[in-house]
């Protein structure tokens, strides 16, 4: 037994790496299903908040992430645009991550084609602007002055969907898809209370716990956390896609990591002094 524990303690961590890799590849490759995705009430809150918007409303869609967290944010971005376009809501996209622009362009183009929406008439992507929370605050004064042109360089005065849009008074809701700074936290701080605009957020799992106080205080109407939140939302929107596909691998990896914590504590039992403080 003690030999076994000693062996465990000396385990090269690359074996653990290998196990993680296999556990993630296997369910994807063989496509076996462990359990169905059941939406949580937070995902429902996100979905219902968008459902409550009257047709023809205008939504600001902030895609503040880049390929670094694409696996988490892209599925929720895609699903949110599906729900918005299905409900005939006009979309104004902005991105405060420079590398987020092509992702947002993709999402709008792909779903726009699905629903037969026209760029410029039903939706527009204003693209990236440097300055983080300063851009948000500046949009509160004037959106056309902050974004004189869209991501293609077309002046906003020539874009039909931007007609009449001056500042947040004409925006019915903000949908924030966020990876970190700048993102949901800054939108809450700079825009939600200050200009009284309701907001829902789809965020990476790392940052999700930080936003629960905002959710409880009513600064957010709904919250999607990570790929699991995206999968729940995909089910609600009625088009299970990328995130739902990944959930079985996700389940297995979680169990494995929990098991590693237990195993590690058994292996190193009694080896170190107890901690103080």
């Amino acid at each position, binding site marked *: 037994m003690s030999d076994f524990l000693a062996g465990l303690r000396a385990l090269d961590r690359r074996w653990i790496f290998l196990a993680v890799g296999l556990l993630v590849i296997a369910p994807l490759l063989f496509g076996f299903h462990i359990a169905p995705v059941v939406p949580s009430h937070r995902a429902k809150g996100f979905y219902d908040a968008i459902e409550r918007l009257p047709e023809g409303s205008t939504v600001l869609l902030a895609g503040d992430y880049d390929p670094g967290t694409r696996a988490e944010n892209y599925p929720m971005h895609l699903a949110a645009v599906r729900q918005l376009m299905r409900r005939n809501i006009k979309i104004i996209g902005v991105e405060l991550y420079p590398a987020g622009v092509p992702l947002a362009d993709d999402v709008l183009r792909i779903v726009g084609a699905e629903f037969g929406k026209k760029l410029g008439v039903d939706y527009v992507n204003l693209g990236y602007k440097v300055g983080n929370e300063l851009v948000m605050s500046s949009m509160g004064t004037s959106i056309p002055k902050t974004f004189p042109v869209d991501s293609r360089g077309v002046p906003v005065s020539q874009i039909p969907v931007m007609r009449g849009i001056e500042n947040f008074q004409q925006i019915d809701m903000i949908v924030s898809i966020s990876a970190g700074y700048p993102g949901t936290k800054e939108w809450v701080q700079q825009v939600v209370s200050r200009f009284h605009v309701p907001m829902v957020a789809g965020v990476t799992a*790392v940052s999700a716990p930080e936003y629960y106080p905002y959710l409880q205080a009513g600064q957010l109407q709904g919250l999607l956390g990570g790929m699991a939140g995206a999968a729940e939302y995909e089910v609600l929107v009625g088009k299970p896609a990328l995130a739902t596909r990944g959930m079985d691998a996700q389940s297995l990896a979680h169990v494995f990591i929990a098991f590693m914590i237990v195993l590690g504590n058994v292996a190193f039992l009694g080896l170190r002094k107890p901690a103080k403080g």
Partner: protein
Amino acid sequence: MLGVERGRAGVHLPAAVSFAICLCSLLFALPASAFPLKASDTPNDGGGSITLEWTASGPVAKEWILVRRERGGTFAPVTTIEGTVHSFRDGAVQTGVTYEYQLVAQPTNPQLDSEISAPTQAVASKFDWTKLNVLVVSGIFFLLLFFYIWQAQSGVRWTFRKIPGLDAIEEAIGRATEMGRGVLYVPGVQEIDDIQTIASMILLTKVARMTAKYETNLLVPTNSPGVYTVAEEVVKSAYADVGRADAYRSDQVRYITSEQFAYVAAVNGMMLRERPAANFLLGAFFAESLLLAETGHSVGAIQIAGTANVHQMPFFVVACDYTLIGEEYYAASALLSNDARLLGSLKASDTVKIFLIVVIVVGSLLLTFGQSWLADFFSTQ
């Protein structure tokens, strides 16, 4: 509180007048079935907006066309509104121009039209009363801050509680000395202008003085040239302070690389080779926190960590012997720095916390007994 009441009353005064005018016109001018349309300046904005409210009694039109005219002009449509709606904010008016509104039923049915509203102007507010709570809370905090900084500058010193992680620094260096092994100090991965890195440099002063005194080897790998320059200066002068300038070697502080994972790989390599008895991970950490803490733990070092990056705290808590959590980390550096501005700020934020605790307790008790005014005062939405 009085300020709010007064402010709000002031804003509503014209509304009350216009409502009275509406009532009068109801009596004299219009058919009985029409309902009043209340138009008033949208409060707390920069002008350019009028808020309309109405309650239609009896049968309601399917849709309304909202029409507007400048006084003496002719009505022109503004927008179409569904019959179920009861308010609208017209944000396309000019400040200081007098307007009149009417809701015209669609399909046409004059019976269902509203009255013509009383003439109204959009007014630009000089103060946004919904933000009074922000002004009050920040005002209290800043006044306390200036007061305590001023006190600290005139030599007042307060007693603060012990911070276990801070006291453990000496113990860890002592143990390293006994074991004849070195000490590793990682100052985070942000630039020198980051507040957390600055705090780290203050803590480094204490660590360097002790290692100089105990003649224990200290290594400081840095990931930015800026941090390298400052850290070198800090360590050098700490050695000089305790009279051991001769013991300082130029390779104790090193610039490794700015690339995140390459830096981690290099520091982990140092840990495995040098096997330090104590690791200090103090500064702004991101994804590298768990890699550094893991390797440090596996070589059996005493680890003391501190960061204000919330996401990284769990990894430090489980793998390190002591963790300075968020504010504790800043407090530790303030206590060590003896800088009046930092000490005054610490004292001021403690005092504001007492104030907030009282507000929350009193507000919750009031709310329990049906009094919501304190809660409402803090509402921002």
